[in-house]
């Protein structure tokens, strides 16, 4: 089975297809006329210096919370947005500055699959019209029969079989899963060399989701197309990807093979993110690394390391100096001053006796004097003394 094979922890060793260097995208905030006179122009730092490679036949997963810049990165890669600065080399050609015919030629080679199959299909277009539109736009396929043949092949590879049965239906006659398959067929009909899938399964029901994910894995196997798979769901990304890039506030904080990121997270943010992922097993109880506060505004990005206000391990340097993405062990890149020095843990290794103090919200490690009862709260010894007894079970400390 093709999917079973692709599940083997392999490292894609093909040539670099897409190489991204220091990509930046700033969105200016529109101020009123007076505002533009009296205050400096402000920007949303959507993507703030991102570099990575995508190799032949590889699926690169991108995870992060909403607003971390993962979708903007995807849109930049297919040039739906123009980067503010930085370079993107697609098979050696810098895409960042392409214009006119060359850009059109590039767009034939890259495709995007969108999140919501209910909105990404035109309700007045039949499936055939939707899937054949890219052919018309790019002038591929001379005759109607030729195009019909191509559409039918694309539909069948998206497992809409027999294609004739679906070809002349409208989106409202299709289920959510079938719509997403049409969207996939539309992306594949031009035989692209690179596909960006932006949350392609997050709108779908669970029982249908697995089918679409397996389909995409099979297609990658069959056509050897490199994919970029964007998702907020770590479990789904792990299933889909060879490598995972974890993004936070427009920066890639960690980049390594999927299993390496899951089993050996090195960035404090990844550590917290993984411990927050719910596990479909009621017996799996583990300690949680709670991170403080909320995602800062991407307009006023914190100085130094952007994660420092929420980091458990921060030191003085983190506030001032911006870290760089460094390769700590071969193939494992981390954007942290102390990567490899601080001991981050995977969720399984976090003992129940560790966690965030309920009074001061600072981290309590197993080595510190602390107080716990049977309740899921933990306190520094001095804060426990202030409280006197557990506010939940009323047990005296």
């Amino acid at each position, binding site marked *: 089975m093709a999917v079973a094979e692709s599940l083997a922890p392999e490292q894609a060793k093909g040539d670099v297809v897409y190489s991204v260097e220091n990509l930046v995208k700033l969105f200016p905030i529109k101020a009123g006329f007076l505002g533009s006179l009296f205050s400096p122009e402000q920007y949303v730092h959507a993507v703030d210096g991102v570099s990575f490679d995508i190799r032949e036949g590889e699926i690169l997963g991108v995870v992060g919370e909403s607003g971390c810049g993962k979708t903007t990165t995807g849109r930049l890669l297919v040039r739906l947005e123009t980067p503010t600065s930085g370079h993107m080399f697609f098979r050696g050609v810098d895409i960042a500055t392409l214009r006119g015919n060359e850009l059109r030629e590039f767009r034939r080679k890259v495709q995007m699959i969108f999140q919501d199959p209910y909105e990404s299909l035109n309700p007045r277009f039949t499936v055939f019209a939707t899937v054949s539109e890219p052919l018309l736009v790019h002038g591929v396929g001379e005759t109607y029969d030729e195009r019909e043949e191509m559409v039918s092949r694309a539909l069948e590879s998206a497992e809409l079989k027999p294609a004739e049965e679906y070809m002349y239906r409208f989106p409202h006659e299709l289920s959510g899963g079938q719509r997403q398959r049409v969207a996939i067929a539309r992306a594949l009909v031009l035989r692209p060399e690179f596909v960006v899938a932006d949350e392609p399964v997050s709108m779908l029901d669970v029982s249908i*989701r697995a089918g679409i994910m397996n389909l995409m894995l099979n297609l990658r196997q069959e056509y050897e197309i490199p994919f970029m798979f964007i998702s907020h769901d*770590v479990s789904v990304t792990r299933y889909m990807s060879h490598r995972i890039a974890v993004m936070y506030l427009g920066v890639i904080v960690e980049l390594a093979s999927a299993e390496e990121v899951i089993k050996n997270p090195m960035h404090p943010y990844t550590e917290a993110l993984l411990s927050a992922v719910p596990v479909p097993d009621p017996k799996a109880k583990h300690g949680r690394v*709670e991170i403080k506060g909320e995602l800062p505004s991407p307009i006023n990005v914190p100085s130094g390391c952007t994660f420092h206000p929420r980091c458990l391990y921060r030191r003085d340097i983190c506030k001032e100096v911006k870290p760089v993405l460094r390769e700590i062990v071969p193939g494992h890149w981390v954007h942290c001053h102390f990567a490899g020095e601080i001991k981050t843990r995977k969720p*399984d290794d976090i003992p129940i006796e560790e966690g965030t103090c309920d009074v001061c919200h600072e981290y309590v490690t197993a080595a510190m004097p602390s107080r716990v009862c049977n309740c899921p709260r933990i306190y520094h010894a001095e804060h426990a003394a202030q409280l006197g007894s557990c506010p939940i079970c009323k047990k005296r400390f």
Partner: protein
Amino acid sequence: MKDLRVYFRIMKGTVKAVDGVSFQLKRGETMGLVGESGCGKTTTAYAITRLLPNNGEIVGGEIRFNNALVGRAHVATEVNEALKRTTWFEEVQAILGSQEAEIAERQKALMEAEARVAAAPEEARGPLIAAVDPIRAQVAARLHEAELIQTLRAVGAAPPSDELKAALQAVVDDDLKGFTAARRRRRMDREIETEINTIRWSQVSMIFQSAMNAFNPVYRVGDQIAEALLTHFPDMTKEQARDRVLQLFSRVGIDQSRVDGYPHEFSGGMRQRSMIAMALACNPQLLIADEPTTALDVIMQDRILAEIRDLQRELNISMIIITHDISVVAEVAEKIGIMYGGKLFEYGNIMEVFDRPANPYTLGLMSAFPSIKGNRKRLRAIPGSPPDLSDPPPGCRFHPRCRFAQEICREKDPPMVEVASGHWSLCHFAKEIYEGTLRES
């Protein structure tokens, strides 16, 4: 007040959104209701709080909260629906029996109340008489139904036959004629209205699906919560309400200074927290959370789930958590109910159900979920898509997608089988699946 019991079997219009669902929830228990979109989980919640839209009607079964009836079908509607099924004779008998008991109970309550009035000294009668009136109204509201039951009883005292069915149908049709569903419901509601108005929000509250939109954008969040308090506790002063709101804010982990903020100034997680604060305002005994974390990021989801777990433990309230995400339920619930196509497919203790699922749909869901734990396993998709509930497939509703389906599944409705104590599964082969002896067909 004893155990909280919710028991219901309802059916909505011609779209059978919820079709024969029963469960019990004890005080302090958390139940997760899992299912795909359109499987009837939200409708179930709306039926409990009686927030069904106008075209929705309970056509069978009943909902009890602390043993008080808070939702049920009109006798005529219920019998009418029962007559359409093959087991109509037994069902009609059961309906008449339970409704008679209910009416008798109310008459007894009325008699007792009147007896108390008679026994009390002259000067203490005032409040007692006032208490009798609503009970009398409740009995009066059912006079018509009581008559109908008597007629049906008189007709139905014969062995089951086609003639009997036709005769019963004629009685019911006669009653239904001239009454639209809405009027029938209104007629019945007068009785239940008093019941539900006292419990809605004060005893049963709900966290709605999209916390983003649940607040009115032009009022301060704190004021909106205070409004709920003032409506339910008319004696409360504004200052008391504000104190309570401040207390609730710190309870759910929002800084008290944000009480005068507007919804747009709150982040998604904070709005969800304020929604929880609002739901907790009147000290409910049952909290229904409809997709409480769906729109949130993982980290915020984790925090809200931890918050829900703590609240539940501290306040000892019962909870129904509705979600499509099995892993969310695994994190917070003790019991799990898995819904599909308007029916409860499997129900039981969460450890038990996860350990040894006894239903092919549950098995399918579990093998369709990726996890960050353990090794990467190949996911197995469930083929096809959920059924159209206005025209569900005959027999078992899952059979077109089931990998164990056999001839019987296409023809007969599956029974609810208790495979182990408190562990129920709606499947012809529940026992075999529980024991792991069934082969795929």
